[in-house]
């Protein structure tokens, strides 16, 4: 293997492998974690309080619009978390990155939780505004498929006695599911849906008043940092767990 794999001296591979070292990851993430977790908590609570109590109501939806401050950040993290899962899958399949395998295992349940939150808040919002808890339009259905992809990934990576085989299978599933992300994003533009088209876009002005936009952006940032902090903490626990298992195994063999 060594002779063929000498490409790890390329700059990209070297910088990747610097972070692949679990010991270095533990040191760096231990220092970074509080700087992610505390702003996450402050921004999420502050943004939610701002949105739920101080931002104006909507001209046609009234106070029901306030659920947007939970629905949109969790929808963004449902897709963003899956993209992170897919990036881990590429790192795992191509570079055999050991931390990417562990990260994929830890991202799965967190992403699934945010997807469930997105579906639940959307349903609660749909009943009073549209008149239905659920409809089978392209946006809702594709997000439900995303939720099932997360669940499938969670089950698959844990289904093998040999964890490496689980990582491979999970990575392939994660990559196959990535075709769903553009479908989710563009479903509201490609087909007639009951769900509204995007309010925020990279090009063009947001069709939302700034008094509502700012708390929403704070919530999105807070939720995203919260996602990162939860995944980082879980990943640290997973690395430590694996170390302890290794030590116990070595102890048992030495005895």
């Amino acid at each position: 293997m060594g002779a063929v794999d000498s490409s790890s001296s390329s700059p990209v591979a070297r910088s990747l492998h610097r972070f692949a070292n679990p010991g270095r990851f533990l040191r760096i993430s231990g220092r970074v974690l509080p700087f992610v977790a505390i702003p996450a908590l402050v921004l999420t609570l502050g943004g939610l309080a701002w949105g739920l109590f101080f931002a104006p109501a909507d001209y046609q939806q009234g106070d029901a619009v306030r659920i947007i401050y939970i629905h949109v950040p969790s929808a963004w993290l449902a897709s963003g978390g899956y993209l992170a899962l897919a990036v881990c899958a590429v790192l795992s399949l191509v570079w055999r990155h050991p931390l990417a395998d562990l990260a994929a295992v830890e991202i799965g349940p967190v992403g699934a939780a945010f997807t469930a939150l997105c579906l639940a808040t959307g349903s609660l919002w749909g009943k009073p505004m549209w008149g239905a808890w659920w409809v089978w339009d392209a946006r809702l259905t594709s997000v439900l498929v995303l939720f099932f992809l997360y669940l499938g990934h969670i089950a698959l990576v844990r289904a093998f006695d040999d964890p490496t085989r689980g990582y491979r299978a999970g990575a392939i599933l994660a990559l196959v599911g990535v075709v769903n992300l553009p479908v989710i994003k563009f479903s509201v533009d490609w087909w007639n849906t009951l769900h509204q088209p995007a309010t925020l876009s990279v090009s063009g002005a947001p069709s939302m008043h700034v008094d509502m936009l700012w708390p929403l952006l704070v919530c999105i940032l807070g939720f995203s940092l919260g996602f990162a902090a939860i995944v980082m903490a879980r990943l640290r626990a997973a690395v430590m767990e694996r170390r302890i298992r290794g030590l116990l195994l070595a102890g048992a063999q030495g005895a």
Partner: protein
Amino acid sequence: MLRTRKGRRLAVVLLCLMGLGTAAGLTLLAFSDNLVFFVTPGDLADKPQPAGRMLRLGGLVETGSVTRARNDGKPVARFRVTDGRAAVDVEFAGILPDLFREGQGVVTLGMLRPDGSFLASEVLAKHDETYMPPEVAEALKKSGQWKPESGAAPPAGNWNTLNPRKSGG
């Protein structure tokens, strides 16, 4: 790129993704007629549907077309759904959602009657992607920049930083 094991693995992953993406794209394109949640009156004019088949009809409630009546103590609403190209008469017996109003988007589930009108068994309200405080909407309507009967709000750049208290609107 293909000389190392990693390069080959990367190439395989990229090739698989491209193949998968193409397959998914072609499938969605082939089924796009079935992936729409509703048809518009214009679609019905292009491709007439047989009477009696369940379908979803969506569009805007035509301004000035809503009449409400009572039939055996049940509220009955009649209105026209339009997409700008064509319009269809709709009859619905039941409680309309709160957001239902003239100029607002709706999706109705029901069937066409032989006379070309539509008997709905369910009406859902569809809202657009515009969010603004009531005072801003008021100010826009007062200044004549937005006529709600004529449909969507003006471009967002015109109002999304508007402060009605300061501008005295």
